[in-house]
Structure formats: structure tokens, C-alpha cells
């Protein structure tokens, strides 16, 4: 197990270097000069422009810029934002809990609904529930997220007035960050109604963000279950006279979960990095929105650092999934 962990950690190194290279060059390939963006509509003099270029090191060759950047990164310094003048690292970790909270809630919802739905569809193959579920999964999967989000806002916030439209909590509450998770902090603050407010703000973004993962997990669970239910060991389990529920949930589901967990791992990665649309529509102050804003501002350090940190998070999630894999599948654990 330790060897496995170490060898996986070693593969982090080339991946990490690759990610920094891509994020570093990616933003520089985009048209647009950060210094001109900074100056805004007023423009600036030639001298001031050159002075600023030298200050940020843009007059250096690309290679030495990368070298300087990497020296900083390895010392834990991702640079400071051009716009806010705050260290990228601090900004990221101030915003990341919001994204993490939303992603975790979304993936939990998707797992809690998707796996049982997939199982029930598989054991009722071809019947009404199966068909209904698979068609709605297809709809959920192909629906444009921004449109779905707007639809939800119109119905639940606009017409029914059940939930607020945007933000993480109502403005009447104020308390300091303890964990960064609004659900926990609002409870800790002890203010009446704070938790309820946090939940009501979280509901719509969670549902919207969970839609695609839910559809993917349900479909994947269904097909994995169908395959497993045809295996010889399921026949053995039936020949033992086990009740159907035990066959489904003990003997079949555990085997079927192996491919499902792979998919969940990939989904968590995309949620962390890709909640951008959802965060933008619901004005959710997470890293997705932060990244989009900084791309508009050509805020090089933020884009580079943000991309890199997101990539590291995704790598950590993947490692966790691999370890989880070993827990569920003994064949991997022992070899």
C-alpha cells in the first residue's frame, strides 16, 4: 500500500511540471497585454509602459520568466494578483471553500440519487421506471447548464419565491470564517436563521451543478449493474438461496461500484474546475468565478496559479479515488 502511494506520488512530479508549463504558456498565447488592460481606457505613456514591463519582468525572455516563476512556485510563492495586489495563494484559499462546499454538496446529491436510481433501473430493466429514468438522464446530460440554471431561478426564485437568486448567505448575517464552509460557519455563529439562509442559497446551485453528474452516475451504475448481474458469481449467490435484496446490494453493487467510482472521481475533478458557469450565474464567490474574472483582466499570476492549484486539487482527488479503489476491489489492493 505504501509502495503504491509512493509510486503514485512520484507520477505527480511530471504531471505537475506539465500543468505549470501549460498554464504558463496558455495565458501568454492569448491576445491581449496585461499592462494595457491595467491602464484601462486612459492609456499610458511609452516610458511608463516600458517601466511596468520591466517591473513585472515581461521584458525578459519567456524561458527566464518561466524559470523565475517556477523558483517562486517551489518556494510556495505563486505571485501576487495584478489587480488586488494580494498573494494568489491567499486569494485561492479564501475562495476555494465556497467552490468545495458547492462541489461536495453537488456530488453528494448526485451520488445519493444516482446510484440507487441506477440500481433500481437495472433490476427493472426495460420496465417503465428504467425507461423513464434513462430518458430523463439523457435530457439532464444534454441540457445546457446556463439555461437550466436560469429556468430554475425563474421557477423557484421568481415565480415561487422559495429561494434567493444569488450569493451564499443573506446580507443580514455577518460572521467570521472559521472553516470557510457556510453551512458549518452559520451553525457555529449561533445566529437564528443563518443556517436556514445558507441552505436556501445553496439549494439551487447544488441542484444545477449536480444535474450532469447525476445523469452520468445513474447511467454508469445501471450499465455496470446489468453487466455484473449476468456474472457467474451472481448465479452462485442465487443458488445459495440468498434473498434478492442481498444479492443486489451485497453481491452485485460492490462489484458494480468499481467503474462507478472511477467516473465519480473524474466528475469531482471537473466539478472543482468547472463550476464556472454555475458560479457565474448564481454569483457564487468561488474559484470558478474568480478565474473567469482574472482571465478577462489578463491577471497572469492569478490564471497561472489558479490553474495550477486546481490541477493539484484534481490530482489529489484522483489519488484518493485510486486509494478508494483498492478498498473496494481486493484484486488491486494485493497486487
Amino acid at each position, binding site marked *: 500500500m505504501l509502495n503504491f502511494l509512493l509510486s503514485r506520488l512520484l507520477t505527480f512530479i511530471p504531471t505537475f511540471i506539465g500543468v505549470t508549463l501549460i498554464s504558463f504558456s496558455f495565458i501568454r498565447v492569448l491576445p491581449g497585454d496585461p499592462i494595457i488592460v491595467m491602464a484601462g481606457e486612459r492609456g499610458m505613456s511609452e516610458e511608463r509602459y516600458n517601466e511596468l514591463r520591466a517591473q513585472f519582468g515581461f521584458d525578459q525572455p519567456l524561458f527566464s520568466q518561466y524559470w523565475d516563476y517556477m523558483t517562486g512556485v517551489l518556494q510556495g510563492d505563486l505571485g501576487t494578483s495584478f489587480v488586488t495586489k494580494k498573494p494568489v495563494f491567499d486569494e485561492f484559499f479564501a475562495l476555494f471553500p465556497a467552490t468545495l462546499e458547492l462541489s461536495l454538496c453537488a456530488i453528494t446529491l448526485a451520488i445519493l440519487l444516482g446510484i440507487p436510481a441506477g440500481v433500481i433501473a437495472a433490476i427493472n430493466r426495460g420496465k417503465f421506471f428504467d425507461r423513464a429514468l434513462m430518458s430523463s438522464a439523457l435530457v439532464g446530460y444534454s441540457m445546457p447548464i446556463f439555461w437550466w440554471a436560469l429556468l430554475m431561478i425563474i421557477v423557484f426564485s421568481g415565480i415561487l419565491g422559495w429561494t434567493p437568486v444569488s450569493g451564499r448567505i443573506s446580507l443580514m448575517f455577518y460572521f467570521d470564517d472559521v472553516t470557510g464552509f457556510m453551512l458549518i460557519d452559520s451553525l457555529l455563529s449561533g445566529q437564528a436563521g443563518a443556517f436556514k439562509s445558507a441552505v436556501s442559497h445553496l439549494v439551487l446551485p447544488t441542484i444545477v451543478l449536480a444535474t450532469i453528474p447525476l445523469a452520468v452516475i445513474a447511467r454508469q451504475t445501471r450499465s455496470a449493474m446489468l453487466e455484473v448481474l449476468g456474472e457467474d458469481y451472481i*448465479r452462485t449467490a442465487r*443458488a*445459495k438461496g440468498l434473498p434478492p435484496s442481498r444479492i443486489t446490494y451485497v*453481491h452485485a453493487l460492490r462489484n458494480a461500484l468499481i467503474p462507478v467510482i472511477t467516473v465519480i472521481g473524474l466528475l469531482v475533478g471537473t466539478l472543482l474546475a468547472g463550476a464556472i458557469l454555475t458560479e457565474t450565474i448564481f454569483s457564487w464567490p468561488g474559484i470558478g468565478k474568480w478565474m473567469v474574472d482574472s482571465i478577462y483582466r489578463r491577471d497572469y499570476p492569478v490564471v497561472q496559479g489558479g490553474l495550477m492549484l486546481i490541477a493539484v486539487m484534481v490530482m489529489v482527488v484522483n489519488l484518493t479515488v485510486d486509494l478508494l479503489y483498492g478498498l473496494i476491489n*481486493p484484486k488491486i489492493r494485493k497486487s
Partner: protein
Amino acid sequence: MSLLEVRNLCVDFETTSGRFRAVDGFDLTLNPGDITAIVGESGSGKSVAFLAMMGLLPWTATITSDVMKFDGHDLNVITPKQRRQIIGKDMSMIFQEPMTSLNPCYTVGFQIKEALRIHLGMDRKARHARAIELFEQVGIPAPETRLSAFPHQMSGGMNQRVMIAMAIACKPKMLIADEPTTALDVTIQAQILELLTSLQEETGMALVLITHDMGVVAETAQQVSVQYAGQKCEQQEVTALFTRPHHPYTAALLAALPERATTKHLPTIPGVVPGQFDRPKGCLFSPRCSIATDLCREAPPPVGGAEIGFARCHTPINLNAEETA
């Protein structure tokens, strides 16, 4: 009273290209302690008949029979819940592929103890003790440590022993062994067969051995029933069957045994078992039979009496006691 009585069991499968009859009029009577072999080529419906009795066929199968009784239970009218109390306990089955027949996610100990808990309600300690006892009984070395092994950590022969231990865990009255040695190599085959017959002697359970290997039959069985294309074509006591087969198909199977070959080339039976679309009008074996007549090709043969081994044949052979195969 007989332990198992089956009369005219038929199994049809609903396929996209129409109905397919996999088992056609299967009869069997089994008394406690009997060892019966069911012999036939692939596709002769031998496994399907027993899977039908166990209730393990998919929903595409339609099962009909005049009589299907096991140990006082009428399997035709039994509810799924009642059946689950019988299978795995009084009637149990082992399968062809030991490597895929055990759940890869659980230890073999877990899978054995599960049956003990469900059927006998033993507590944890009793289950553990009984599992060790069973492993010893089926000849698995170091049972204590093997209980926590996963199926992929053991050989095919060991896994088949685990399957056998699991099947006899609740002291069944009948054990169905569906080609238990086909996937194993020859030396292991002999060990497994020996194990099965010695367990049968110890416990006095009835043993059904489904096989296509006449050598296996000769070594183990008392009664032999030969299946062809879903029908039983002959049933005899084992020595009688080997010395005086009455159905040409049985004779051809015996002639194909390497031990019995007298010529340089091993005799074979030309052609294959008829499938869904090429079922002959008359005797199902007629297209491959060396002594088939026009009558054989036109009309299905009747089932003969006990004196000719219930042979389903228009022209049964070896009718005089002096003749031998």
C-alpha cells in the same frame, strides 16, 4: 418415497427469433444416496434442466412439467421465497467455472459463512468453526488462513473445493455438480471427482453429475442418463450402459472414447447437435445416425421400455444379451 421426481420437464426460451426448446421431456427419478450422471454434448439441455429445478433460469425461460417434486415440495407451485429456503440448503449446485463462480470482492470465508447464517442461523463463532471444518472436509490446507483469502489468490482447483464446501455447508440432500471438472486440468479433475464421491459416501446425499466426459461417468456414477438435443435418449445402470448401449447415440459416444478406439483414427460422430432452426422432423439424432432408416427421418421415435434402457429409438441396438458393444 423418491427424493426427486421429474416427469416431462420442458424448458423453452423466448428468443428474438422465436421460441427455442432447450429441454424436451426430461424425466428423472432420484432416491436418497443415488449417484446419477447426466451425459450429453454441449447444447443438449443437461444443465438447463437442473437450473430450471433450482429456479436459476432467466425470465426468458418458460418451464413446464407434469411432475417436479423434490423432498415433498412441489417445485411447480412453490413460491420464490419457499424455493430460497430449499436451494443452497437441501438442494445445492456447483458450477463449471470455479474462477468466475465466486464473488471477487469478498473472501471465500465470507461467502461460505453467508450460507450458514442464512439457512442455519448460526452465530459468528459457530459459523467460523463450521467453515474451518468444511474446508478440512474438502481438503483445503491451512483452512484458518485460507478463509480470509480472496478467490483470485487461489487456484482453480482450490476455488472448486471452496464451491463444494459452500454447496455441502448445510448438509444437502442432493448435490448437483454441473461439469465440475471441465475447467480444471486432468490431475485436479481426478482429485475433485474423488472428493465428490467420498463426500457422497460420508453424507449419503444424492449426487447428480452433469458431464460430457464418459470417462468421468465410468469412474463415479451408478445410473447414467444420456441426453441429446434436449431429450433423454437412454438411461441405464452404468456397467450395463457401457457394455450394452441400446441407443445408437450412446454407442457412438462410447466408440469415440480414446480408450476404446481400435483404429488409428479416433471415431467421431459426424455433424453437430441440431439447433433452433435445423431440427429434424423425425428422430433428432437421425441426421447423424449410421443406421437411420426412412422411418427414423419421418417419425419421432417412441420411448422404449426398461429392458432397452428407455431408449428413444426406432431401431435400438444390442437387443440380445450375448451381443456387446
